[in-house]
């Protein structure tokens, strides 16, 4: 476990996954691309959830990143995939820096509602902005990589896969290091009881803000990735059901392990494509049943399958009474 979680070995795992893409069949490749880009935004939600706050409006940053990239790509012809991911992350990161300090004052259900409201404001604005295509959105040109345009669909798919896996992998490695850092561990303390953290002389507000900005950055990069995969953007990116799906992945994963986020995202995509194949028009039914089953049987998420086994006996104490309301999913 220790060896596996060393940054260098994690980097090796990411590279191995990229190379694996060469042998994967085409349908798995695009599925894995979507799963990788979705797990990036879900990872952001997990980072935030470690402070005890669940954002139901990550669609705001997802859409902000996507629209930012799409506009720059169409206006200035900037189609480089790596640059687009960075632009997406920067756009949403800046937005997160503006909104974060305002929103970090709230906890629990109010935090969730406020993020939801902000994303719906953005959605409403996008739908009515005819310059941006209104509710239909608009198309974006095919992404390139370091000056190469991939015309072979197989190669283009692999390029997207590689960029998504590397971007998400790097974010995952960063998150793992962050989780073990002083600030990352402090986030868990905020989650347990933010007032006590304040009494210890540390600003819980600042910790939540930092985590919020990280989550926003990840969401923006993820928006850029899924924009590249779809080559089309519309306000649906910011709608609350989109955000809900990412919260779903985060809950499925639990907040204990980064790898669990990828597993959860992949599981969701598999469930989605198989239910599309065998049970058309009922995939929400399958999703709902799946969600209920996970909450019921794996209350601490998929990550608990391997994380809790190695940490038995080191579990933190039960939270103090009266703080249960600010606890995220366990």
């Amino acid at each position, binding site marked *: 476990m220790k060896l596996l979680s060393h940054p260098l070995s994690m980097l090796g795992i990411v590279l191995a996954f990229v190379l694996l893409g060469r042998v994967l069949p085409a349908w798995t490749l695009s599925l894995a691309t979507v799963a990788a880009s979705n797990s990036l935004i879900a990872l952001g939600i997990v980072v935030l959830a470690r402070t005890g706050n669940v954002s139901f409006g990550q669609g705001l940053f997802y859409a902000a990143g996507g629209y930012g990239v799409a506009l720059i790509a169409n206006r200035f012809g900037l189609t480089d995939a790596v640059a687009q991911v960075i632009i997406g992350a920067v756009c949403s990161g800046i937005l997160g820096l503006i909104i974060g300090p305002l929103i970090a004052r709230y906890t629990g259900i*109010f935090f969730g509602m406020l993020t939801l409201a902000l994303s719906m404001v953005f959605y*409403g604005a996008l739908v*009515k902005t005819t310059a941006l295509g209104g509710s239909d959105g608009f198309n974006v040109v095919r992404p390139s990589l370091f000056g190469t345009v991939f015309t072979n669909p197989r190669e283009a798919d692999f390029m997207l896969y590689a960029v998504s896996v590397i971007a998400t992998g790097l974010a995952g490695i960063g998150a793992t290091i962050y989780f073990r850092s002083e600030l990352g561990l402090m986030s868990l303390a905020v989650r347990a009881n933010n007032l006590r953290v304040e009494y210890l002389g540390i600003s819980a507000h600042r910790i939540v803000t930092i985590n919020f900005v990280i989550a926003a950055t990840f969401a923006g990069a993820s928006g850029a990735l899924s924009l590249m995969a779809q080559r089309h953007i519309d306000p649906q990116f910011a709608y609350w059901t989109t955000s809900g799906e990412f919260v*779903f992945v985060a*809950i499925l994963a639990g907040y204990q392990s980064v790898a669990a986020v990828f597993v959860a995202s992949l599981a969701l995509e598999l469930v989605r494509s198989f239910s599309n194949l065998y049970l058309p028009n009922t995939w929400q*039914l399958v999703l*709902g*049943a799946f969600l209920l089953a996970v909450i019921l049987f794996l209350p601490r998420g998929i990550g608990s399958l391997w994380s809790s086994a190695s940490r038995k006996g080191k579990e933190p104490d039960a939270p*103090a009474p009266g703080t249960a309301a600010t606890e995220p999913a366990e």
Partner: protein
Amino acid sequence: MSLFFTIVIDGLIEASWLFVVALGLTLVFGVLKILNIAHGGFYALGAYIAATVVTLFAAKGLPPALSFVAMLLAAAFVALAVGAMLERGLLKMFYGRDEVVLLLVTYAVFLLLEDITKLIWGVNPILATQPYELFGNVSLGRLFYVGYDLMLIPIAIVSGLGVWYGLNRTVTGKIVSAVIHNAEMSASMGVKVNRIYAFAFAFGLMLAAFAGALTAPKISVQPGLSSDVIILSFAIVVIGGLGSVEGAAIGAVLVGLARATSVHLFPQGELFVIYLIMAGVLLIRPEGLFQRETARRI
């Protein structure tokens, strides 16, 4: 002046059915402390049941007045039964878990309901407009209104007053209030808290279905109803303060008027003006307009 009048009437019509939906949502939150996303699903369920009843009655040649009453009763009855089953069979298993987990459970139910309605009623829009002509047209000054729309206002007022009276002036209401205040203490006083939970949950969902049935003749009943309604009623309940009946009324009027104002004066803003108000209220008074801040243990 006439524009002002139009906005107020339109706003009140909009507010009235939204209020009935939000009333159920706020009641469920007050008693069970669950923000119930499935509420929107029950609104859609009510609308679909109403549409079925209306088409059935129209096919048999029965008068629309009868189908109006029948659709409301059918929707309310089905929602009561399904709601009680849902609470006893599913929700019960998650009590004591975190608020956000319960929110996700109701989100799962919302997803289930969404597809179940599609499986039963298909994806094509259903039109059931027969009761819409029931109350004729009413002229207010130089403006003509459909009587059915205006009827929604007194129906909403009666529902609100009924719930208020039930909560504040009856023994059952007092018991429910006791459970809202402190479930553990009420249980030790001999209140069957579980029964109150089931009752409140089913009653809240019944209000959602009732509102769905009321609006069914006005609209074309189709998939996607639920996700829009739930977000609107969230906004109302959050503006008014979670768990507050008066708050839901004020929130509904605010949202209805805001929507009508922007439809008439600034159509581009129709969708986001509501969430802007919600975000504004949350920023200034996170507990909502009608909720006192609660002390918490450190």
